[in-house]
């Protein structure tokens, strides 16, 4: 196990902290309890919070106790909001529950990234240790080359005061919130040795904030350099903050922090208006982002658009509060065959979500009753198996599964309760798969047409299953 892996495990493997977070006021969780999902029932919320019951997902009572205000579990007036924190005070989940209601605390396994370690001479372990998990700030690596103008920018918004050390001998300087810092690294004064793996020296940039970091931009034009296109050269990023964060790592015309190989966000939460968070990051090897409700609102729009998925572990990311997966994985690369099995309770749009990518083999979506838009969802996609449990509100299916003849990979498609027409031409669905697709349909909302031309089982499936529900079937 690499040093980085051990370090990451230390960061994310918060079993003890989680136990403290949930039952830190006197209760005990069985030591053998797996990292999984627990149900936390809180009563007495209309007055003084009084007690909690911790249950496993089979509803077995594991523990009970009282809840004081403050500490690692805070109940905030008017006593319906709760915050769960790591022992280091990092917020891992917030929510609202009514008296007698239930909050589900999802405890996920540590992020595990196999197959890639940063070159040893990056000394990322040493650099990342400069920022503690309990602090607010950023640590970054940036290559600096002899005889070149080494431009970069960083822009942070934050509360309190900030300082930045560029790691090039210029010392610690004040960082002003909302003001872009134009950087020109000084190669000669960087104290670290030549780094063979990058062919230059490595600047270790450390930003520390006394308050909360709310926004981070890494792809701005440098005013000394002028406008640029392409990627900024930031190589690695570790960020810690105790509030929801908006991260801006990409820009139109392909300009992005696309050289980032490592992004370590710990348990940070992303802000709703921070779309494109990991968009266009073609070099991404590690995304270290664990925990709870990591993304809220529409932060998932173009989330991993055209990014490298090979080091991204979706298991640790909750999509239950996202309102859109608009082109979230469009054009994703990485030579992987991922499965995406998620609840998307608040999601309205899956437009283009898995379009033009071969990184996903199987998609299983639950709690999909709010989805209205399936346009281009699997357009030119490599997905073989796609399932939604509730399509009753879907109104748009244009180009849902389009691919040229021979280029459609879908073998199984379930769109339960769908009431509108759809074109699934040339899907590799045999008669059984088509019959199962028909069985899942709802009742047609008026005149609706399903086109199955070119499907493997088009000539032998039982079309009466669908026509009995009011659909016209075109072959």
């Amino acid at each position, binding site marked *: 196990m690499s040093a980085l892996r051990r370090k990451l495990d230390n960061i994310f493997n918060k079993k003890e902290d989680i136990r403290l977070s949930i039952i830190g006021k006197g209760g005990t969780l069985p030591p053998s309890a797996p990292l999984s999902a627990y149900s936390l029932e809180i009563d007495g919320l209309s007055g003084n919070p009084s007690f909690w019951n911790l249950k496993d997902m089979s509803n077995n009572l594991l523990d009970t106790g009282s809840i004081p205000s403050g500490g690692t579990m805070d109940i905030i007036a008017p006593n319906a909001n709760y915050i769960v924190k790591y022992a280091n005070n990092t917020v891992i989940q917030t929510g609202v529950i009514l008296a007698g209601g239930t909050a589900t605390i999802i405890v996920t396994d540590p992020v595990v990234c196999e197959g890639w370690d940063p070159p040893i001479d990056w000394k990322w372990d040493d650099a990342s240790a400069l920022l503690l998990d309990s602090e607010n700030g950023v640590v970054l690596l940036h290559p600096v080359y002899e005889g070149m103008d080494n431009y970069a920018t960083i822009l942070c918004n934050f509360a309190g005061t900030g300082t930045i050390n560029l790691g090039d001998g210029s010392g610690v300087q004040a960082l002003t919130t909302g003001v872009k810092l134009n950087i020109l690294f000084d190669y000669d004064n960087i104290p670290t040795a030549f780094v063979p793996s990058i062919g230059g020296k490595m600047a270790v940039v450390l930003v520390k904030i006394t308050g909360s970091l709310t926004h981070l931009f890494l792809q701005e034009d440098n005013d000394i350099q002028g406008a640029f296109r392409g990627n900024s050269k930031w190589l690695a990023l570790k960020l810690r903050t105790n509030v929801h964060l908006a991260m801006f790592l990409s820009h139109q015309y*392909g300009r992005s922090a696309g050289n980032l190989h490592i992004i370590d966000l710990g348990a940070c939460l992303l802000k709703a208006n921070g779309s494109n968070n990991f968009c266009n990051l073609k070099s991404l090897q590690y995304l270290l982002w664990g925990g709870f409700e990591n993304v809220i609102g529409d932060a998932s729009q173009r989330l991993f*658009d055209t990014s490298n998925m090979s080091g991204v572990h979706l298991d640790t990311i909750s999509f239950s509060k996202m309102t859109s997966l608009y082109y979230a994985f469009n054009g994703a690369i990485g030579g992987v065959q991922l499965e995406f099995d998620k609840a998307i309770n608040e999601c309205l749009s899956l437009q*283009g979500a898995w379009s033009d990518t071969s990184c996903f083999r199987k998609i299983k979506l639950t709690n999909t009753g709010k989805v209205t838009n399936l346009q281009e969802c699997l357009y030119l996609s490599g997905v073989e198996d796609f399932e939604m449990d509730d399509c009753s509100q879907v109104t748009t299916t244009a180009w849902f599964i*389009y691919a040229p003849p021979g280029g459609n990979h879908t073998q199984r498609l379930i769109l339960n309760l769908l009431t509108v027409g759809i074109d699934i031409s040339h899907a590799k669905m045999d008669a059984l798969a088509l019959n199962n697709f028909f069985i899942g349909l709802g009742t*047609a909302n008026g*005149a609706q*047409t399903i086109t199955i*031309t070119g499907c493997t089982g088009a000539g032998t499936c039982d079309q009466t299953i669908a*026509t009995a529900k009011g659909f016209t079937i075109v072959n």
Partner: protein
Amino acid sequence: MKGLYKDEKGTLLFAQNTINFPDGTKIEVKKYVKKKEGTDVHEGWLVFNTREAALKHFDIEETVPIPLDIDPLRTL
């Protein structure tokens, strides 16, 4: 391609082999493709020799989606 075409809310539908309707009506396309272009076979399904001819008849401008550029930078 010869077949039956229909304008469904601005989207061009195409039937190459069969159409099965909810009322039990079944259209076998090959029985109609030799009819005059524009012949209305059933419930708005018309005979055409080419997709282009159908698009022109229904005045549909068909565009294949092109993945959008990355959204402009959002400002604070």
